[in-house]
């Protein structure tokens, strides 16, 4: 039987650490980066500063790719041109999130969603948050629009869009 091929590994409890029962070393080294945004993301972020969402058209499959990239991953060729998309879209899926990444509970749930943008090829969404909506009112297929930070506060970041809110 397989039981004999299981090693009796030593399990510890958090209290073993707290009580100093076990020796530890810690490391808080730096892992810091400055990633080149390059062409597609550089332009995308710059357009966000201007309050616009842009995609890239592939001349081969005719899709408008969003988030934009300089190549079409299906046709494997460079994309051809910039296309300005609308400010509205549709919720493809969402969640009501009650915990932070370290499992600490949030007072108010966050509502992340994948939003397919109008003007992009079908189903081409991005990840963002929903706002100005009671969590229990969120539905699949809900129509939403971007809510921007004031122009002077924008910095060329995805957070220049504060969130998406339902279109009433």
């Amino acid at each position, binding site marked *: 039987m397989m039981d004999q091929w299981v090693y009796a590994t030593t399990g510890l409890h958090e209290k073993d650490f707290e009580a100093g029962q076990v020796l530890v070393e810690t*490391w808080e080294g730096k892992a810091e980066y400055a990633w080149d945004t390059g062409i597609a993301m550089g332009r995308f972020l710059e357009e966000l500063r201007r309050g616009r969402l842009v995609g890239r058209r592939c001349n081969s499959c005719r899709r408008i790719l969003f988030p934009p990239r300089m190549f079409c991953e299906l046709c494997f060729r460079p994309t051809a041109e910039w296309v300005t998309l609308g400010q509205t879209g549709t919720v493809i899926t969402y969640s009501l999130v009650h915990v932070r990444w370290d499992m600490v509970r949030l007072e108010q749930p966050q509502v992340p969603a994948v939003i397919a943008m109008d003007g992009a090829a079908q189903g081409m969404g991005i990840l963002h948050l929903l706002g100005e909506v009671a969590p229990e009112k969120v539905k699949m297929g809900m129509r939403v629009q971007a809510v921007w930070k004031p122009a002077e506060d924008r910095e060329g970041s995805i957070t220049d869009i504060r969130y998406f809110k339902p279109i009433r």
Partner: protein
Amino acid sequence: MNRTVEIVGVGWSGFRSLTPDQSYKELVFEAALRAYADAGIDPRRDVQGFVTAAEDYHEGTSIYDEYTPDQLGAAQRPMHTIGGDGLHALAAAYMQIASGLMDVVVVEAHSKASNILSLPHIVAFAEDPTFERPLALHPVALAGLEMQGLISLGRITEEQCAAVVVKNKRNALRNPSAAHGTEVGPEEVLSSPPLASPLTSLMAAPHADGALVFVLADTERARTLKGEPVRVRGVGWATDTPALDSRDWTGARYARKAAQMAYRIAGVQTPGQEIDFAEVDDSFAHKELLHLEALGLVPSGRAGEWTLEGQTACSGSIPVNVSGGALGEGSLLDATGLSRALEVVLQLRGQAGPRQLPGVTTGLAFAWRGLPTAVGVAAVLSA
């Protein structure tokens, strides 16, 4: 062995100290487009598998392999990452083809070293957390210790190391894809700022950004492609030990073992005679000397002398790092091994331009995995 394997296309981009005009995806796409044009293939139609070599902390992304497929044309295809050197990835592709599972496999590796703001911390993060990291040393200390150990044994001298730097940086001047070629004299190398004595800053390869893509195919399939095939006669890879206490500090066991395997598969019995030229890891100048001996290309204890005599120069009996090596091109992190292999391919095809070696038919590419490892990969390529 069931099948033989060829490199049927190569493409590269970048090879500069900074590449602020392209994201890593754009850099890789450009290299891929060139490799596919070189091989005359459509990646969406003609390729069964894709392999990337990458490390999370070089990218600043956990589970970096998520981001590998799109810029290679590999979305919805069998693709996987190797946590290793680009030559490990090449060996993986080689096995996939040799097994009969696939006919055409693409290999990619890249560096955006310029995007890493805390590289020494990250290299130190590869050390043992209990016995090595608490000392909080810049990891270059390990290179200094190795170099001093070899000097103490009388195996190499500082002057010989300086000669490696002079040669490789000069070679790089004739390589348009080398970011760090220059004219420098041995005195300047020795008097450049020390990093970890006796290692000076000019003896350590600087970094560069770049991407490389290789297309591999089995020999039969290669015949139907337009590319100029170069045979992968043998691959070999080996790990010594991660432990500092029990590793071989003076003989590069990882290089010896990797080469033995590659030579066995390639049927190479006297490497010094059968290998016409070599591209070997020179991340630190002394490593080129250490590796040349471990790879059996130079008699034991003679690598330094041979370098001073010019035998490893372009005109010598065993030209080494004609491309400029990592000292001349810049270290490309996980892509370094493929940059060594790229030069071997170009030389064997007669496409090396002003640095073309006459009449070469067999070359060796060898990569070391970098600090703090004792890991090596070798590939024997023939025209």
